[in-house]
């Protein structure tokens, strides 16, 4: 079977409705794209994203509410900062930073989610499998 990217999507409560809407509109995406809903994107510990890569994710997406849409600005900003730092770390150690991204999705933007996921899947397919686990074992 041809390799398909394994993607974990962390969705905040509001953007999760956006993802629901994508399903409602009949947008299909490969079953290897799995979503986990958390109450706010700021609760995502960067180590959790690292763990996802270690366990086999080829890409990790974080969907969050745009800072201006929130009751207060900061949680999304913090998420943005954390993802930016982690992308720098990945790049430094030779992992393509585009495997980790933030998508700004609000609760009625199912269409945007669909388009972005298609595009990103295409890019990740071109990057190929990440296979951290395999690479670590073979060196060690």
């Amino acid at each position: 079977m041809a390799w398909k990217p394994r993607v974990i999507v962390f969705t905040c409560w509001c953007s999760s409705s956006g993802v629901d809407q994508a399903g409602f509109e009949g947008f299909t995406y490969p079953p290897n794209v799995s979503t986990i809903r958390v109450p706010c994107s700021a609760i995502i510990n960067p180590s959790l994203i690292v763990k996802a890569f270690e366990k086999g994710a080829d890409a990790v997406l974080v969907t969050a509410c745009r800072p201006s849409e929130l009751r207060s600005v900061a949680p999304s900003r913090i998420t943005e900062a954390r993802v930016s730092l982690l992308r720098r770390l990945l790049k430094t150690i030779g992992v393509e930073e585009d495997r980790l991204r933030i998508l700004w999705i609000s609760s009625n933007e199912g269409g945007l989610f669909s388009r972005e996921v298609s595009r990103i899947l295409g890019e990740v397919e071109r990057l190929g499998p990440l296979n951290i686990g395999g690479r670590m074992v073979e060196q060690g």
Partner: protein
Amino acid sequence: MRRVTVVLCTCCSTLLEKIDFDRLRSVFSSSPLVRRVLITDSLCEKNACENLGLKDDGRIVVAACSSRLLEAAFGKPSLVEFVNIREQCAWACGSREEATLKAIRLVKGGVQKALRVSQPPGVEGLKITREALVIGGGIAGVRCALDIADAGYRVYIVEKEPSIGGVMAQLDKTFPTLDCSICVEGPLLSEAGRNKNITIIPNAEVVEVKGRVGDFKVRVRVNPTYVDPDKCNGCGECVNVCPVYQPNKYDADLKPVKAIYCPFAQAVPLKYVINMDHCVECGLCMKACTRAAINLGDEPKNVELNVGAIVVAVGSDLFDPRLKPEYHYGEYENVITNMEFERIICASGPTGGVLLRRDGKPAKRVAFIQCVGSRESGPGIEECSYYCCAASMKEARLILEHDREARVFIFYNELRAFGKGWEDLLYRRCLEEGVVFIRSRPSEIRRIGNGSLQIVYEDTLTGRRGELEVDMVVLALGFKPSWRMVELARRLGVTVDKHGFIQEAHAKMKPLETRVRGVFVAGTCHGPRDIVESAVEGSGAAALVTSLFRRSSLRLPEAAEVSAEKCTGCGRCLSSCEYRAIVREGDKVRVLESVCNGCGACLATCPQEAITLGNWGLEQLAPQVSAMLED
């Protein structure tokens, strides 16, 4: 071994063709982690939970549609993990095979999480003390208190002056209709004084606030007045014999009163007070008083209040015009502030309403200078002060009402007449009555002979320089947050904006709430406003208070909690909290429950996760992620 119940919903059988439920049942029945697997048709049905015997089943994984509706059905929602196998699985997969594999993966993740969740300590059913505190007895505070009292709840008004009324009581007429200010406010003040639900505590300030929404403990210090309010009947005999005069704040210090005085005729409460800074303790008033109401040995007292909500309505100060030396306020006696003008033009004021200069001569030519302390980057505030264009136009009309021969000039920057009736009743009438508007920010006021003044300016519409001679200059002062208010904000734990005005929780979504739950804001302490806006905010805050009081008990949204054993006090979490809900306490940190908004940013910042919030830590999420990537 903890065992989990797995409940699969077919969504009225619509998911049967999209997911192989038999396979799901077989995979999870054979798992040692799962106690039992149930398949049902519609979990969203009214008594579905009870019918399936799930109400108290402990840890449950519910695989169904998007969960918001389902959460309410379960008794202990924190032990239930919702997995979406519909919108984000069945509907999003191309084939039954794919959807089934994905559902298996998602539910495996859910099981891992459900094994590790725990019931948070009860934050439900917190008591609410249904009494409110309004700090500040100006129009905003009084309006707010009256509305809360009308709704049937007890409310305290703490006011630092001897009487409620605030600035509105000092004004002559209000814009745009030119109604007598105290005539409009007086009845409200009387009503507040009479209302059995309202307790006014004058001469007082809030010194300490502890507790949370629904249960604040407030310490109020009542300053001594040296006159027993229970005995004083307001007869005024003491005033006749008092030998000392002092400046009268109510009259903008323009006309002195005795050391023992009543603030103004419509004061509520109508009691006399002594200003000990000026009193010489001669004791003549004691002899004159027939009710033995005077007690020169009076001391400050503390009053402890227990309230469920606090409204901050303390107002703001005005800009100090001495910070603009080019206008020579304080130096040239005929340069006055707009508050002083209000008192002069007012019939109950120091001149009986006759428009006289400080030197006693009539003022026939009056100029107003706008934006003194507003819309600038200097010592004033950057914002527009909202009320002053309208106030000056109103005052211009009052001058012409008193003296048709007078000449009035208004030096403006932008003329703002946005309120209801302002365009017609103020601006148009001013034009009709011959008020001259000059677009300029004058550079200087000079004194010329016999007390008259000369304004040096450049008319920015014509570009021409000019010098205008007038009898009196009125400075339209901008707002300035008072230092006292900033100090109060600190005691309450609320934030102030960059100017120093109290900051609302969100400009659009929560305009009258502050970052501390249960503390609301109304009036000019919130920012530049006029009387109408202040009253509106007072009513708005009252609605929020009564809405809070109508609940039978309080449920605070889950707050983050710091484990004192694990916390090393490194402080990395402090800067991650936008709400400033985390504070240092000794060697550790602590989360302020009433401020925490449950976003979890601190959790993910703490390197050893000494902070917990619900079931959203690495302990729960890492196994879930791992299970979802296993194949």
